[in-house]
């Protein structure tokens, strides 16, 4: 995933109405007019939200005659989820290493102190 695509994705899902549209499409494909009826926003506003979702690659539009049928494409969301998972693992490992580091440092200090005592 490129930087620009990540930006588009984060921008697209930062809005609750757009997240609700995605959740709605996760259940069932829908026409633009159906979505406008489902949400308390104008058809024009709905279209704008859908365009942002399309640019982020989250929504596919299939034109059948006069109907525009929208469907969810969850793949980019999996990329974002993968980013989160990668860093979760990274920081868990680093905190484990931090634990080992301070523990070893304490043990070293204790050993030195004991050594001094013996002298």
């Amino acid at each position: 995933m490129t930087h620009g695509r990540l930006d588009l994705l984060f921008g697209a899902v930062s809005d609750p109405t757009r997240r609700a549209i995605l959740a709605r499409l996760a259940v069932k494909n829908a026409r633009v007019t159906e979505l406008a009826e489902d949400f308390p926003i104008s058809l024009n506003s709905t279209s704008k939200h859908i365009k942002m979702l399309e640019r982020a690659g989250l929504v596919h539009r299939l034109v059948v005659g006069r109907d525009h049928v929208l469907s969810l494409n969850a793949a980019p969301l999996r990329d974002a989820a993968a980013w989160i998972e990668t860093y979760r693992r990274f920081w868990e490992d680093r905190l484990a290493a931090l634990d080992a580091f301070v523990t070893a440092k304490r043990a070293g200090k204790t050993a030195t102190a004991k050594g001094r005592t013996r002298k």
Partner: protein
Amino acid sequence: MTADTPTLTVEREIEATAEELFDAWLDPESLAVWMRPGDIPRTDATVDARVGGTFKIVMHGSEKDYVHTGTYRRIDRPKKLVFTWVSEATYQRETLVTVVFQRTGKKTKVILTHEQLPDEAAANSHRGGWTSAIEKLAESKNG
């Protein structure tokens, strides 16, 4: 912390004082030791430990170097450390890391939050659970 951006939190309780743990984040020699993942032979760190100061952590891999840079936003010893984090894995985009140190008896709980910073378009949007929403949708059968 904003709820609108992808955020992850990890915690670990460590048998040490908050000061010992806090200092390990700002001391380059300490960072060189614990900021070295298992498959990395050597890590170098440079630190300018003041608010507005920068750090650079280079993990020297056998095939390539992994460079991590950032700027300290808040240094509140031994309670809280906030810095930006930029790397190849963030697509060179500025992300934000907050580390909180909480004393619990003889141990200290380290709570680390790593979040994507909202871009201008997203900054004025409303609240909502970004992470749970995308994780839920990512599991969706579509796509």
